[in-house]
């Protein structure tokens, strides 16, 4: 059991536990906090894989912005514990089997084809911030600019939606 593998298992367990907690918690704020745990664990995993910039972005944007937004909304709406309604029989009975099926399919696909994957390269070599930014501003400049436009649209949308009816 090498160090990376050990770290991987720890972080993986953390992520899975966070996800399970997300599902099982009744109060949405607890679910939000669980999600933050998952995201931090994932950031750790990104670091383990040598994607430092992505890890940093994950923490700052996902954890620091998006999840904060979620928490704000939960507090704004005064969310309470979940109501125990159950109007959809289909979801009740078919939910778990279907989810298992989906996961199983994906896992099977992964398992069958993992032999074709080459061994991972040593971390840090190819994916430095410098490389990423070079790519973003040369090959991917067009999608990059589009995303800024997308963010502008999202801002406008959020403003319109949040307006009080006058």
């Amino acid at each position: 059991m090498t160090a990376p593998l050990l770290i991987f298992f720890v972080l993986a367990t953390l992520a899975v536990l966070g996800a399970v907690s997300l599902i099982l918690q009744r109060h949405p704020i607890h679910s939000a906090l669980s999600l933050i745990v998952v995201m931090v664990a994932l950031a750790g995993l990104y670091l383990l894989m040598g994607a430092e910039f992505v890890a940093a972005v994950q923490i700052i944007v996902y954890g620091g912005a998006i999840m904060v937004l979620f928490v704000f909304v939960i507090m704004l709406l005064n969310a309470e514990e979940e109501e125990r309604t159950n109007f959809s029989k289909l979801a009740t009975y078919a939910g778990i089997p279907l989810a298992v099926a989906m996961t199983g399919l994906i896992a099977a696909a992964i398992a069958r084809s993992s032999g074709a994957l080459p061994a991972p390269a040593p971390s840090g070599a190819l994916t430095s911030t410098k490389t990423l930014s070079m790519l973003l501003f040369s090959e991917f400049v067009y999608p990059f600019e589009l995303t800024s436009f997308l963010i502008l649209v999202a801002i406008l949308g959020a403003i319109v939606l949040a307006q009080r009816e006058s």
Partner: protein
Amino acid sequence: MPILEYLWIIPLLPLLGSAINGLLGAKWPNKIVSAVALGSTGLSFACALEAVREFVVGGQHPFHKEFFNWIVAGNFRAGFDLQFDQLSVVMVLVVTGVGFLIHIYSTGYMAHEGGYYRFFSFLNLFMFFMLILVLAANFALLFVGWEGVGLCSYLLIGFYFLRQSASDAGKKAFIVNRIGDFGFMLGMFLVFQTFHSLDFRTVFDAVAQGNTAVEPIGTFGIMTVICLLLFMGATGKSAQIPLYVWLPDAMEGPTPVSALIHAATMVTAGVYVVARTNLLFTHSQTAMYVVAIIGCATAFFAATIGLVQSDIKRVLAYSTVSQLGYMFLACGVGAFGAGIFHLMTHAFFKALLFLSAGSVIHAMGGEQDMWGMGGLASKIKVTFWCMLAGTIAIAGFVPFAGFFSKDAILFATFNYEFNGKVLYAVGLLAAIFTSFYMFRLIWLTFFTQPRYDEHHVHVHDSPKNMTVPLIILALLSLVGGWFAAPALWGGPNHFAEFLAPVFGGEKAEGVEAHSLELILSGVAVGAALAGLIVAWRMYTKGAKRGAMTGAYKVLYKKYYVDELYQAVVIGPLMWLSRNVFWKVVDVGIIDGTVNGIAGGTTAVGDTVRHTQSGNTRSYAVWVLVGAIVVFAIIFWPILHPVLVGGVRQ
């Protein structure tokens, strides 16, 4: 004007009259309608006379002209072709001449009826189709006329369509005719298949020049089958066994209709067809034998029914069926000329008898039952004398027309090679019956004590426009036979000679044939006398109806043939139609399929509806299902060993 070049004008004139009266005549007074109808028919008769004159003067060459193409399909051509030969002369003159007289009569008879314009429109339409039938030069055009006269018969029988019995009778006539037409069509198809043409000239030339062998009796070669099928059509149209049942019911129509269509012209169409195709028939002994037997049997059968009927028109109807039987008997034994001769004389005296009966009914204010008449001789003199003339003619007394024609037929039958003597005996018996029931009619109607209330019924003779045609027809019944009297009587044998080009010459007879003919003629007259005397004895003094039992009842009820047909044919067919074709096929299968598809669609919709439940979570599940399906499809190459094998590797 060379009428023959414009031969189409003879049928066209009545068609124009029919169209004008039919489309415009509803608001016109009777006078104008009559003028149009009589004008068109009269002009047609005049043109027919002119055509005959041209034909005779021009050397009696058969005339044939193609006017326009009707059906052209590959090698097959059926055109609007008309022909004119000796047989056409007889038929056209009979149709237009007797038709014209009956039109005149109808102006008087129908004067007080509603639908006057409709009557004449239909009557003219009938003339058009009948003329097409007799002038046609190919089977297809003849069939047009054939069907057309059937249609007009339906329209005219059901003229008083508000009466249930009349409309039923019209339907019966048309449907029974249709059964015969089925045979006729099959015959036509076989003709086409054998000779590759429906043209008369082509077909007959092929038979004559092809040295086709005569198919001996008992065999069923192609000629026999064709002739039997064509004859099946003739039994329908000319009311022979087994398809005669419509003719007595057809008496529901107005009397002029009975006179024209069901005595003089339409019912003779079958005889005309057999005579026209005599070249085909003479090549099949079996077919001729069948025709002779059926003709003879019908003559006898119908005569027996006529013995006891009480409705004056019914007696005449069965008499018509019987006389048609004689015509077919003549054709069957090979004496086509005699058959056509009898057709002509029958047209005269049967039309006369029907019109006179109409006159009697008109005088009696609508009464048709002979047991409600009596003692009319002194009251309606003209009608009486005319009817007597017709009766004497039909019974076959010298020197009236009926004698010569019937005598010719019976003589030819006697000499027929297959059981001719038996057929002769039956025919003779039928002749005795004919005389009997006709004189029975005379005694019951015109003599004996009046059996009606003289205060309620004002008996008056008919107006001139009804009596003049009667007189003309009576004269024709008298003299019509003279120009055709066989050489035996010293008379000019014009008729047979005239028709020789169409039928083949008569065989020359030896001296002993002469004396045989004389003997047989004497027997025929004797038969007529016998019938008269028996009728006189039974009906003049103390005439009363027979008890409705036993043989009398069977005859009165027409041997229960209609009931038999109802039970054996119509009943099962209706049952089949109702229970199988309607309930099972139409409602069950066809409607069921359509409704089933609709129901299936509804059911599918009902089921699929549940995916749109309005519940977000179930939507989520459906999205998931879709995602799984898409994923499986995309990764199928990798996945299927796992999924099929079921083992995680």
